[in-house]
Every structure is written in structure tokens, then in C-alpha cells.
């Protein structure tokens, strides 16, 4: 995993917020994921295979997704399904960008949305995972990238 890869995933995520809501998200200081779980209430997970293998997930809070629903859909009381759909859409956007950039020699999975605080997301072993804190409108979330 190199700087360009990591920047690419970060930019894809940050651009989503700016394009969809007009408000820029902020990147926090990235760090290497240890054994402690990095998981919030909703997580959109994308698997990557082919020439390079790995996994990327975006995990966030219900509050952030509700606020996002308000910005995009104009609704104040988003149903659980809507919130879940948004988590999927966010992951899907990242996935789409990755697919576009990495070309057809890579396999990008359809995002899987996990609801609720799971113990952790299982990531490929022996590959370093990087955690990038993302803040949008004071809501915290994390982008986790694990790519060999």
C-alpha cells in the first residue's frame, strides 16, 4: 500500500460529502489499525480482489447518516432503512470511484452494510490496515483501508 492508494481512498470519501452536501468533510490524522475495533453504528464494506486484494470500509454514526439524509433528501426523521441505504450509497460511491480508477483487472464487491456495533470487521491477515478519521459537520466517522 502506498501514499497514492491511501490518498485516493481519502479523496473519494471527502469528495462524496462535498459533492452531495456542498460541505467539505475534514480528514483527521491517519493511523495504523491495531487490535482494537474501529466500528460505529453503520458500516459499508467493500471487498477488493484481483491483482490486489483487500477491503475498505466506512463506518459512521446514525446521527451523521440522519443529518446526511436531511441534507440530501430534506427529511428530518429518517427511517432506519433510509439510514442504512445511505450507508450503502456512501460505500457504493467509494466503490464506484475505486472501480473506475483501478480498472477492470480489479474486482470490487457490491458494498455490504452492517448495522449495529459488531465486534469488529474481519480484515485480511498480515496486511496493514490504515484508519482515517473523517469529520463532517462535527460528526465523526472512520474510513478503514486494508490493501496488500
Amino acid at each position, binding site marked *: 500500500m502506498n501514499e497514492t492508494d491511501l490518498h485516493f481512498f481519502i479523496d473519494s470519501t471527502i469528495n462524496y460529502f462535498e459533492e452531495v452536501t456542498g460541505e467539505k468533510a475534514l480528514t*483527521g*490524522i491517519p493511523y*495504523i489499525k491495531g487490535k482494537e475495533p474501529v466500528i460505529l453504528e453503520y458500516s459499508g464494506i467493500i471487498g477488493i480482489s484481483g491483482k490486489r486484494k483487500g477491503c475498505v470500509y466506512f463506518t459512521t454514526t446514525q446521527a451523521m447518516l440522519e443529518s446526511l439524509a436531511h441534507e440530501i433528501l430534506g427529511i428530518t426523521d429518517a427511517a432506519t432503512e433510509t439510514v442504512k441505504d445511505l450507508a450503502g450509497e456512501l460505500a457504493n460511491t467509494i466503490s464506484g470511484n475505486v472501480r473506475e480508477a483501478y480498472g477492470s483487472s480489479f*474486482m470490487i464487491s457490491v458494498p455490504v452494510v452492517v448495522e449495529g456495533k459488531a465486534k469488529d470487521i474481519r480484515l485480511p491477515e498480515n496486511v*496493514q490496515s490504515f484508519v482515517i478519521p473523517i469529520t463532517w459537520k462535527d460528526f465523526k466517522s472512520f474510513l478503514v483501508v486494508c490493501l496488500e
Partner: protein
Amino acid sequence: MNHRDENINSTESNGELRGVHTDGNGSPANMTKVILRYIEEGAFFLDSQFNFGESFSAALEEILCVKELKGTNFLSLLENRVPEDIITNTREFLEIMFRPDLEEEEIYELNPLAETEFFYEDEWGMWTSSKTLSFRFKRVVEGGKIVALFSTVRDLSEERRLNQKLKQIEDHTQKQMEWLVNILHVEPDLLRDFFVGVEHEMENVDNVLKNTRETKKYFEVLENIYRSLYIIKGNASLLDLKFFSDKASHFLEKIVKIKDESEIDGNDFVPIVIELGELRSTLEEIKTIFQRISQFHNHFRAKRSYESELLVNSLKNLTQSLSRQLKKPVSFDYKDFDALSIPYTYRQMVRDVLFLLIRNALLYGIETREERRSANKSNIATIKIITFTDERFLGLVLRHDGRIERIERLLQKMITADYESEEERRNWEGISVSQLLFMPNMSVGDEQEILANSAMDIEILKRKLKEKGGRLKITFTSEEFCEFIVFLPLRA
């Protein structure tokens, strides 16, 4: 159901399979089924629509890890198991295989599935396992027409896994050999201490990266990481682990580059976290090499007295090597240094503290030969280290007969500086000379870099002592000598 496939039997002649039609009761078709039941390879027929025929080998489903293959489209089978570009190429290849105007031998090399990785999803839809499979395709010709393709598939996973492992070993061997040669000269205990020290500093970097939330503290974070890397580099140099100190230097350069920017955000830390990942991998690899050789070393485990001797020797080596580099002749006096009085838990700490003080003395305190001559001092400077203990403290003394250049310059600044405000003048006047030593990154004019580095050493020393509840006392005259006394509590 595809009758054509069901009734195909095949024999090979001139590299081409000739189909044998039967009416369904004839022995050749039955024979095909019998053969397919017993062969261990995957074997199957594809019709012109690329669908699986009824006959395929019993091993096929197991090799492909797919059930109910009959009638399945081969290209659909590939979806979500191999990358899109391979599926596209396979479609084109199979279409060409059915074109009678092209010779089979000519297109054989175009087979995109000659060796390919098949990925398998888990219950989450993630590809967690894979197999390396090799497909071969042959035309089945009947009455001069290509009526089907006969394909065999072999599972090469184990073979490829071993090949990959071998390649990895080959790729790593040269690098690891270099590292091995580099660490062989270092005593195992020193190396163990080095690992502990590096891990401690890397943990510090991890914690700082993880726990900083406020954007305005980003430059502070950089300083903190810089200090840790500086210690790692210093410790690696002390043991002459060149490849590791080079890596740390490279890392430090990246930090300096970021520090030079007027504004930084989280994105600027990406190179740092990548470098950190690489440094960690390197450390893990060296530890693995070390573990392999340490079994051998354990048979010849050193006595405590020998370990103490090693500590003195490493400090002596550092002094001599810096003395040569800086062309400042130095005599290293350690007759009053009793390494055996240092508790095991403080060994690394004492090494780090003395390393910093020796380095600081040689770089910033001890004068050049010419300067010493003009100051009527002996050409050869002296660095003396001493240990002493009482009930509560372990004491370390480092005394050198150089001057404290930094203090001189700062005093000069105090005397001659053109203060910007009355407040600044009052601030300077209120500062004691000892305090000046501990002001981080305090600098004057063109000596900025030297002083910043010197301040960095002292900052690191301060941090290390604070961690252990230790303290530092300094006695000096501007020309004659400088003495650092470090107190480390013997009971926590």
C-alpha cells in the same frame, strides 16, 4: 438439454478432437461418461453458446467449488470469480475457438484462462479464498464442423502457493542476508534492548497519531513524532545498524518536509503513516531474523558482567566514532562508571541518556582542535562518565571539558539583542542560564539548525527522565567544563 453434447464422444487425432455421435445407446457415449467419472482432472464440454454439457468429470464440481453445473453458462460461472477483463477476453477467445477459419494452434496462446485465480465469496460477499486454476480448450470437430469445445481444468493452487512462497523467499533473501550481516555484530542483549526501545517509540508515535483531535496541535504532533524517530535513529546508529538508521533518516526527512509547510491537515500525515507502516514491517522482519539466530546465541548466553561491559563498549564506540567524524579528539574516561550498579530495568534508559549527552557534548559542547588551542586548552578533550548510588537514586554523571556553545550564544543574544519590545527584553532578563538550556528550538541567527538539534537532544532527555520520575542537574562554566547529573529513582 443439449443433445449434441450428450452424444459427443471424442478421440484425439492430429491435435484435434473428432466428435463421435451415437444414438444414445452406443457404447462410445457411455464410455465417455465412464471415463469422465473416473478421471481426477476437471473435464467438461462447452457448446457454441458456452454452456456446460451434461457430461463432465466428477472432479469438476469439486475443483470449481460449484454445484449444479449442467446447463450453466461458462461466462456466468466466471462472473464475480475473476476480474472483468478476463471475462471479456475469455468471451472473445471462446468465440474465436468456434471459428473454423482460424487454426487452433494459432489461437491457443490467447487463452486467458491458461492460469487464473478464481476467487470465492464468503457469507458477507467478500472474497476470502481463491484457487489458481488452469483451463485448456480443444475443439470437438464433427463432420468438419466445430460442434463443441472440450476443456480440462487443473487446480494449481498448491503448486502456485509454493512457487509464490519460494519467490518471496528469494526476493527477501538478499535483503535479509544484508540485515543479518548487519545485526550479527551486535550483541543479542543490545539488540533486544534496541527492539524494546524502538517499539516504545513507535507506540508513542501510534498513540500520538491516534489521540490527537485538535487541528491546531498538528505541528506539535509532528514535533513529537520527530523526537521519537530521532531517538530510533540515534539508537540504530549507536549499534551501527545502518539500514535501520537510514530508514529512520528517510522518515525524518519526510517529517521535516511537512514541518516546512505553513499549514497542515490530516492528509499531510499520509506519508508519515505509510513510513511508519514500513518501519514496523522492517522491525518485525529483523525480529524474525533475530529470533532465528538467538537460539544459537542462547547457548552462549553472556554473564551480567559481560553485558555491562557491552554497555560501556557501545558508549565508547559512539564517542570514538563521533570524535573521528567531527575531528574532535576525545579521551573517554569510564573508570568510575560501574555498569553493574545499573538495575536491569534502567539499562536501556541509561544507554539512551548517556547516548544523548555524549552526542550533545561532542556536537555542541566540545570545541574543535583549533578552538581549544586558542583557548589554551589541551588538544584532546575529555568526556568522563560516573555512576553513584544511594538508597533512593541511581546517579549518572557526564562531565566534559568543552564549553556550552549554545549558552554562550544565547547570553550573547541577551547582551546584544535588539529586542522588539520592552516586554521581550524583560522576558529575556528573567530567564536563567539553566532555563535557556531547556527551551525547545530556541535559536539565534545562522546557528539555528545546530541549536535546534541541540535543543532537541535536551527535549528528548527531559521527556525520558519525566517518564521515569528522574531529574537532571547541570553545573558549568562557559569555558572550563560542563557537568550533567542525572538522578533516576531506584524505587518507583
